[in-house]
């Protein structure tokens, strides 16, 4: 695994914009970064793929155990929703996507930093934009990226399982450019999978006393939401979720995984596993430096490094993970985002940053392998 410097395509802005990536620059700083790329060997890609499949299986085992125990207190899920979440798992409501953030230096086993099981951030970049970059810049090389094909196939399978659902609604915060584009992309692959779609802002969803409704007052029977479960549960319509008959994507049981409390739970279940870092609910279980993470933080929000012997910093529900400094390539800290689509490892996207903690401002850098 190495970082290569490259000359960006002269018209890269127009090219990525044509693919929907009009948020390639944020506050004057580039987000899509093709002045470099990451190069892997086929063996290294196989290692990432195998680790991702293993972690996915471990996560499903963890969900099964949590549901069997029936107590989601440590995940800070409000008790009125526990049986509803458990029922979603017992019905085997299908999950569509998830992204493991991995620390990987090309030689040691990949280590799970966190699991983004309920937010498709950076999906368009990974599935589409870097694929077109490869076609033009590294033609003849390969890429670990069948995300697009697997998404279309997954939507097609969902369509076959729900023949009575005629329309899938997509909702999110539509005046957020990244969310809007990601929703458009998900609609695109859903439609290619055979399902008509419509989109609306999350605030436009109605409640008619029996079902959530769209702007035409039609009941919503399937809802793809780009909006965290923990927010939906706490908002005014949250209690209606318990009565609403719609199918949600991602399903409610995914909130057991899109929660950093899963990190210490995985460590409890699989202590010493080579793809995990030691993680605990208590600060004092880690003697050395560690990373403190709010269980519901996203995109690096609230994540801080704590020195050895230093007490916890934040309030509220937090977990503590042993420090695994991100490997540096050419002075950049790189994180592998490894996508799971319909239960299969499907590809990766790489984010890099000058700083050791990845945030929503960290650059997306394409990759290839030979």
């Amino acid at each position: 695994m190495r970082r290569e410097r490259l000359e960006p395509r002269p018209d890269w802005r127009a090219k990525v914009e044509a693919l929907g990536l009009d948020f390639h620059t944020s506050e004057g700083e580039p987000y899509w970064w093709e002045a470099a790329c990451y190069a892997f060997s086929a063996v290294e890609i196989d290692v990432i793929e195998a680790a991702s499949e293993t972690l996915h299986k471990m996560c499903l085992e963890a969900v099964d155990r949590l549901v069997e125990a029936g107590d989601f207190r440590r995940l800070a899920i409000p008790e009125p929703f526990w049986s509803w979440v458990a029922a979603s798992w017992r019905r085997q409501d299908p999950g569509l996507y998830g992204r493991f953030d991995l620390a990987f230096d090309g030689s040691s086993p990949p280590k799970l930093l966190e699991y983004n099981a309920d937010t498709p951030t950076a999906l368009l970049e990974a599935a589409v934009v870097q694929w077109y970059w490869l076609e033009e810049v590294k033609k003849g090389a390969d890429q670990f990226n069948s995300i697009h094909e697997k998404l279309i196939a997954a939507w097609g399978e969902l369509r076959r399982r729900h023949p009575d659902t005629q329309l899938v609604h997509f909702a999110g915060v539509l005046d957020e450019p990244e969310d809007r584009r990601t929703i458009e992309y998900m609609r695109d692959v859903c439609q290619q999978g055979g399902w008509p779609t419509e989109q609306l802002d999350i605030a436009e969803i109605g409640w008619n006393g029996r079902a959530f409704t769209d702007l035409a007052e039609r009941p919503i029977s399937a809802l793809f939401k780009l909006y965290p479960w923990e927010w939906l549960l706490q908002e005014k319509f949250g209690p209606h979720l318990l009565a609403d008959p719609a199918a949600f994507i991602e399903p409610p049981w995914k909130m057991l995984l899109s929660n950093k409390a899963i990190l210490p739970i995985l460590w409890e279940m699989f202590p010493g596993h080579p793809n995990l870092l030691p993680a605990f609910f208590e600060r004092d279980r880690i003697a050395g430096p560690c990373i403190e993470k709010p269980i519901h933080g996203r995109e690096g929000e609230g994540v801080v490094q704590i020195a050895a012997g230093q007490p916890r910093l934040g309030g509220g529900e937090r977990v503590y993970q042993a420090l695994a400094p991100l490997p540096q390539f050419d002075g950049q800290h790189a994180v592998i985002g490894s996508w799971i689509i319909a239960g299969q490892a499907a590809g990766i996207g790489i984010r890099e940053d000058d700083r050791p903690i990845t945030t929503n401002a960290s650059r997306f850098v394409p990759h290839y392998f030979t």
Partner: protein
Amino acid sequence: MESGKRSQIVGLTLVGAAFGAIELASAFPPTTLHRNLYADRAACERDYSPAQCEANSGSGSSSSGGGHGGGGYHGPYYAANRSATTASDPGPGRTGQVTRFETSARGGFGAFGRMARAVG
């Protein structure tokens, strides 16, 4: 290069330039809507046009008398807050022959998202 690890074709139908200028819902509809339920189509058509009257399938929350069951006819949704109406609002009807009305609320999701966006 043939490989099981990459998509062979990445075709897009919605994403990209053609969808560049999406119309955003900058003005959300009124927070709460009502629609009237009538005993029969004739009663509904005294308040609304035939096209606005539909057989009631029983969806919606009853807010005034009667049960939740189907039957009868309902008119179109109108703004519950009469000071927040638009030109296209069909209004609450005038005859008073309404058996009950149903309520549809909006704006119950999205607060955290707006707050996160505002903070930054």
